[in-house]
């Protein structure tokens, strides 16, 4: 799959991308919500967006809201250093909300497998 990774911290982004690539996926990194909106509007097809929550200007949740407002229905996975369950409660429409922790490779793979059962 081709996934868009949105994270202003390039180490966190690289880590997410490494996990995805290890799972046989293609990861494209952008460093802000604005860049994500641009890339997605420009057209190249992605299967899902994986975004960090805590970013300057546009937060992960704001990016999600902006995409949905534009009619973009791509699956959206939010990563956060804070309690993911609280965020999921704040925005139940999120396809998944995952804690940024040492377990990322398992939780992210699990979330993707959940979202795309057919491709597993």
């Amino acid at each position, binding site marked *: 799959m081709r996934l868009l990774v949105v994270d*202003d*911290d390039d*180490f*966190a982004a*690289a*880590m*997410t991308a*490494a*996990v995805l690539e*290890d799972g046989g996926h293609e990861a494209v990194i952008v460093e802000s919500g604005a860049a994500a909106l641009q890339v997605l509007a420009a057209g190249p097809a992605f299967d899902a967006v994986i975004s*960090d929550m*805590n970013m*300057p200007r546009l937060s992960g949740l704001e990016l999600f809201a902006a995409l949905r407002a534009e009619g973009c*229905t791509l699956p959206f996975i939010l*990563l*956060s*250093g804070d309690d993911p369950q609280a965020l999921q409660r704040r925005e139940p429409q999120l396809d998944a909300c995952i*804690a*940024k*922790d*040492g*377990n*990322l*490779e*398992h939780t992210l793979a*699990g979330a993707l*497998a*959940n979202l*795309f*059962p*057919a491709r*597993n």
Partner: protein
Amino acid sequence: METTMETTRSATLQDKVRQLQRAYLAKLPQSLAQARAGMATLTGDESSEQVLDDLYRCFHNIKGTAASLGLLAISDESAIATKIVAQLQKLLEYSTRRNEMAAKLAGLEALVGELEDLIEVAPEPVPVESAPAATLGLELGSRPGKVRGRIYLCDEAQDAVHLAAHLACFGYLVSVYTDLGELQRAVLENPPNAVIMSTKGVDLAESLRVQVNIPFLFIAEEGDFATRLRVVQAGGAAYFLKPVTAHDMIGTLDELTIRREPDPFRVLIVDDEPEMADYLSLILEATGMLTRKLDQPGRILDVLSEFQPDLVLMDMYMPTCSGREFSRLIRQVPQYVSIPIVFLSSETDKSVQLSAMRVGADGFLTKPILPEDLITAVSVRAERTRTLRSLMMQDSLTGLLNHTTLAQFLEATLAASRRQGGKLCFVMLDLDHFKHVNDNFGHPAGDQVLVALARLLKQRLRNSDMIGRYGGEEFAIIMQDVSEDEAAEIMRQILQDFAALSFQAGKTAFSCTFSGGVAGFPVMESTEHLVLGADQALYAAKRAGRNQVLTASQCKGGQ
């Protein structure tokens, strides 16, 4: 394609993570220096607001990124720093409390100092794996079969190794620990798919569960209420009384560790308007269904047999033939008598709708079609077909395919192998002295054996292999792309593991074996020959003393 549940970090990922850790540790001092500079400018007036926001983001990022990279101590310290900054933000709103702010700021500075120290003392950031007392199980590649998942078993009792060996037979990779401290380290460094432990470890499990989201299963000597309650309070996923039968344990482990994803619904869309077909397909695929569009009605029978849809969605009015004629045509093929057909049309006239129903339409959707209506109409009916089909196809005790279904699959796969010039094997297995098991230990014990063999076959064979229960204690398997000898070898390994299982009937433990016969295409040319060949080889295996697998070619050669 095999779906394995391999959870260990691959070597390349491990390398990448190590590189990232190094690079991150090298960059961190710079971020901290920036944070310090920001803190120095904090005056308590309005300009401080922006500085505090930046500081918050800085520590929050370190907390998240460090955790992702496995640098837990740094992440923890940064989490505290984040909290202090948040308190500072609150204090800033009441700018009278300058003293308190100064104290907090001093605390924050101390924390940054600690972080800087932590970076210095992290020369080898990758945690060293603590060695388990013993690791049992299938090493990937050494044996065909699926690795179910990694299990840590912690129990000082002797029978732990015995249980581990049993679990390994079912494809779990089991590490045995005798010390709770070692278990804790291993769980935190490399979380398994589940932990099995004695009730002595209940406190540890409770604290570990906060950090790793995996199921904990408990084995207890006693079934008293207090212990059971304690396990439930600690979040235990299951409670087993000794002696534990491996079969119960595996049933529970499978449920807890294997997420069975149902196959997506398959919907065939027949519409001569490509825009409409695209629209329908888009909506259904967005909910995870698989669709196939058909614009030439003439290809319907090919597409039906190739795509095997759960439901057909059809435009009522098409140029070459009407939906009504079309559905009648589909219904005339015995195989498709039960496939749901849903019509789409702008027809609101009830009498026309009724006449369509009469030729076997299952539903009517009138245009314009709302996405929600479409999804509901399709998923409800497809679900029902699925359930009916599985009830018709499966053996109720083992969940394997039944005789009739397997026979149909044999026809179909043989035809495919013939077309593609591939190989195919038909295997028949029969439990040895099964009547003896039922007579001596009762039918529940016999059922236990049947279910165990069914489960073992499902776990050890490929997803593409079709497994059926052929009758009482007889099983049959269709394996594609393997030779007679390869199939026999796989069966022999399964036999070896099956024979090693011990079953429990009251206080008595017993074990079981099976005999098997394998016949392969293209040596055998027709389904009749395959079935007969496998049956004869099975019979020969029985005569030769049971507990073995023979091929049809071996039997011919021997006679």
